[in-house]
């Protein structure tokens, strides 16, 4: 072993050089950036119609999120017309007719930075209409007109979830399986969360505190290009212990939303990696950027060791 230590000592000046900080801040003069309206509006059956409108900003501009607050936002389907109401969240909402908007679907209700979260929403919920075209129409105070159309893909249930322990029975991986319909091209967003009690121990090894935490394990998109009409199986790494609660979510998404995620992810990676391909975000919003898409989700929960 000593000769290896000597080798390492011999090489240590090299490693020291290599370890020098090779990152440095640089000043860049980015060209003038023309802000545009970015829309996110998802149609999920049972949840309120909603949309978020923000302004895109110069990359090195302020970190404050600029919500677009004075727009007219309407969603139309069949012969229905749903007008979305602008509101800050959390809010004391006084809607006409004492209507209530269920904001429980919002994971973040706290201000993000500089301002409250600002959304457009309706007390009406998205109906379970799978062969219907939904249209989004937006008119801003500045006169910009944005529109888009989409549909809601049918829900595809998760068939099974199972876990398998490694040879030492210490860690398990989890498999999630669902049947892919053969008659159409399907796109999915797959989420997997782990919920566990994070325990704090005293000197004697006794639990003195425990906190319930949820950790995101997976979030990616897949299509059925390879497995069309087959049982799709998605696995994880060995990272679950006895008692962990694993929540698998399969979101059936539209091709446009799949492409939007694919290109926004690629753009995100390209900013951080020299091997990434700088990608323009592909949007289905005419007159702006963003996404208007229907989705349905299937959720299944598994407790490891049960």
């Amino acid at each position: 072993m000593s000769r290896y230590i000597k080798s390492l000592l011999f090489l240590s000046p090299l490693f020291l050089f290599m370890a020098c900080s090779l990152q440095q801040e640089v000043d860049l003069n980015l060209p003038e950036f023309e802000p545009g309206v970015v829309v996110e509006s998802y149609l999920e059956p049972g949840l309120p119609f909603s949309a978020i409108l923000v302004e895109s900003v110069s990359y090195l501009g302020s970190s404050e999120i600029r919500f677009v607050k004075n727009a007219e936002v309407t969603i139309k389907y069949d012969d229905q017309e749903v007008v979305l109401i602008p509101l800050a969240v959390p809010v004391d909402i006084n809607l006409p007719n004492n209507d209530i908007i269920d904001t429980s679907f919002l994971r973040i209700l706290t201000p993000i930075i500089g301002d409250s979260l600002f959304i457009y929403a309706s007390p009406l919920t998205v109906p379970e209409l799978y062969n219907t075209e939904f249209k989004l129409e937006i008119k801003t105070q500045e006169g910009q007109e944005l529109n888009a159309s989409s549909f809601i893909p049918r829900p595809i249930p998760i068939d099974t979830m199972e876990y398998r322990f490694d040879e030492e029975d210490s860690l398990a991986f989890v498999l999630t399986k669902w049947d892919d319909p053969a008659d159409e091209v399907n796109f999915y967003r797959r989420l997997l969360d782990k919920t566990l009690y994070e325990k704090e121990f005293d000197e004697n090894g006794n639990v003195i505190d425990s906190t319930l935490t949820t950790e995101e394990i997976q979030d990616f998109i897949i299509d059925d290009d390879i497995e069309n009409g087959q049982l799709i199986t998605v696995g994880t790494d060995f990272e679950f212990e006895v008692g962990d609660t694993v929540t698998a979510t399969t979101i059936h998404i539209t091709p446009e939303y799949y492409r939007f995620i694919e290109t926004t992810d690629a753009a995100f990676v390209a900013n951080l990696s020299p091997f990434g391909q700088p990608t323009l975000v592909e949007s289905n919003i005419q007159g702006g950027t963003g996404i208007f898409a229907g989705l349905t989700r299937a959720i299944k929960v598994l407790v490891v060791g049960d």
Partner: protein
Amino acid sequence: MKHFFVLILVACLPFTLLAQDKFTISGYIYEASSGESLIGATIAVPSLKKGTYSNEYGFYSLTLPANSDSLELVFSFSGYERQTRSILLNKDLSIDINLDFKVLEEVVIEAEGFEEQLSSTQMSVERLSMRDAKKIPAFLGEVDIIKTLQLKPGVSSGSEGSSGIFVRGGGPDQNLVLLDNTVLYNPSHLFGFFSTFNSDAVKDVKLYKGGFPAQYGGRLSSVIDVKMNEGNNKKFSGSGGLGLIASRLTLEGPIVKDKGSFMVSGRRTYVDLITRQINRALEDEPDFNPIPDYFFYDLNAKANYQLNENNQLFLSGYFGRDQFTFNDGNFDFKFFWGNSNATLRWNHLFSPRLFMNIAVGASDYRYKITNQFDIFAFELGSDITDQTASTDFTWIPDNKHTVKFGAKAIYHTFTVGRLNAGAEDSTFSFTAGNTFYATEFGAYIADDIEFNDKLKLNVGIRLSGFNSDGVTYANPEPRAALRWTVGKNVSLKASYARMAQYLHLVANSGATLPTDVWYPSNERVKPQLSDQVAVGVTLTLGDDYLLSNEVYYKWLRNSIDFRNGADLFVNDDLDTEFVFGEGYAYGNEFYLEKKNGRLTGWIGYTISWSWREFDGVNENGEFIPDNAINDGERFNPVNDKRHDISIVGIYELSRRWSFSSSWEYRSGTPTTLPIGRFPLFGPDLEIPQITPIFQKRNSFRLPAYHKLDVGVIYKLFPKWGEADLTISAYNAYNRRNPYFVFFETQENEAGIPIDQVAKQVALFPVIPSITYNFRF
């Protein structure tokens, strides 16, 4: 094809008739101590002001009028003692010459002059001597011929430390890399930081940037023709080196003395031996993540045997692999990639004026990723396999003509994105990927015609073709080169060459990655074409200096890029991700070389422009936005380097000490940066992800690149042979050259984004290295 050979024979007839009152001197030029053939040696008859050069097999042929007086023949080669022979030319003569390497008591480097550069019609060519390449400081002490070529004008690297090259505004896939006649598809190791060429196994390197001889085809921008050593046919000998990251050993010797020889050369990195020990030492640490194993190796081998004075056989091969593995008990990950090549060659002399080379060979490049996880297995790979047959003739009817003709056929097999995944319990299984087959062929004829002492013309044509997936393409590729001598020391040159490229590299970034895939032309993917014209002047200044200046313009058609957000991973319809456009590149290259004396080296300067345009207009004249890049506006690709300067100096202080340095400067690489951003909340309205907004491709430039490398060689003189210690420092003044720029979101303690900053990442600081080299 039959008609083609009839045409050749008819074309040859007048030369045959003319040649009856002439005699031919022919033979081979060898190095005396090893018996290695010498490429590009000069054979001159000063009294007649005639001469020629040995070809890539060491063969020469010089046809002269019958002469009753004694003629003096001079044989010379750079760094070797010249030899003179007196002959009486009243019959055909066969003269093989062994030249001795100069051993000088005093260090005064005496190279031969620049006759070939002045007298040849060939322009836009860089020739690299391995002796010089070994004196230039190298990254981590690993002598790298590709990186040395990057120091020549018109040639630049893809990125910091990369062995990928861009030639005259061309892409990294537009270089035809030949190792003993067969193609090397990925000539790099370790993601491009090292080339596959073990300097101990290489004899000669030529890089053609333009004015391509008719025997070459298949790539648009350059040909890198590398010849391996043949092995010492006089005595058993060896050479090698111990470096910081790799060691190498070459053994060579006679099979039958003066008749045949062999050479075997190997190189392997050993960083994995160190990382394995670190892993073992720290495996009990709870938070320790094992370091993956990585190594690469090369094996070169060659043998030759002279059956008789007219027939010689050569067998050569190369095998190289990079291997990256990771195994933590649950997870068994392997990633390997590499080339393998083999060539069998027969050199035959029909007559002193007609030389033939026939070669059959195979080459293969592949990568494979395997992953075993519990009962699940995953395997992904791509490969390209070639089977090649070629024949090349050199016919020298008289001292006015050198005719070269031949043909080549390659059968390609492409496996693109082959994926196999499944479980041992058969709960799931799927496959993806495509296999394509293609045949590529080419036939050529060219004549190097010397009209008089001043005017020399090389004119030729190559007919190339490609068949794949039921589609056949054929392209005539005319070639022409002209030399006009002005006085004794100046020659003016001009050339034109068309090239066709039928194979395309699917590479989604400027870097060379082992997972880049070669893809054939088909009905949708048309062959890429280039036309290049160049004019230049070459002059010698005294005996020591050569100055050249070349201006070129290159048009590119059917250039390939990828549509926005292309999905290149396991995509069975990969060619639907391609977009097609045009390109052009132009520039001016200056080169000043000093060859003799204690101080040798060169200065190169290139000013150049490279453009691409993907207008998105299809064959019916319709604009398809998805097929356009930058809305159809022209843009600079990453290989656009406005100014490129290199200065290389080698100073021989004494027999023991020599010093070298190289300095490079390149204008910043075009790059694409986001100019805007927006927050993306997602359907669950999570903390938003910052999403960059990119607009025009390559609309920024990174800061300029420059660095200085320095080296010292201290020669040792052990009783058993020769040795030296080579010490070098890469990036000696520790310049932080930008590798890429990114934007970082700075957050407060609560994880809330508060600011965005631009950061530049450099790859290498100053890196010292030491290498021990030996030869016995």
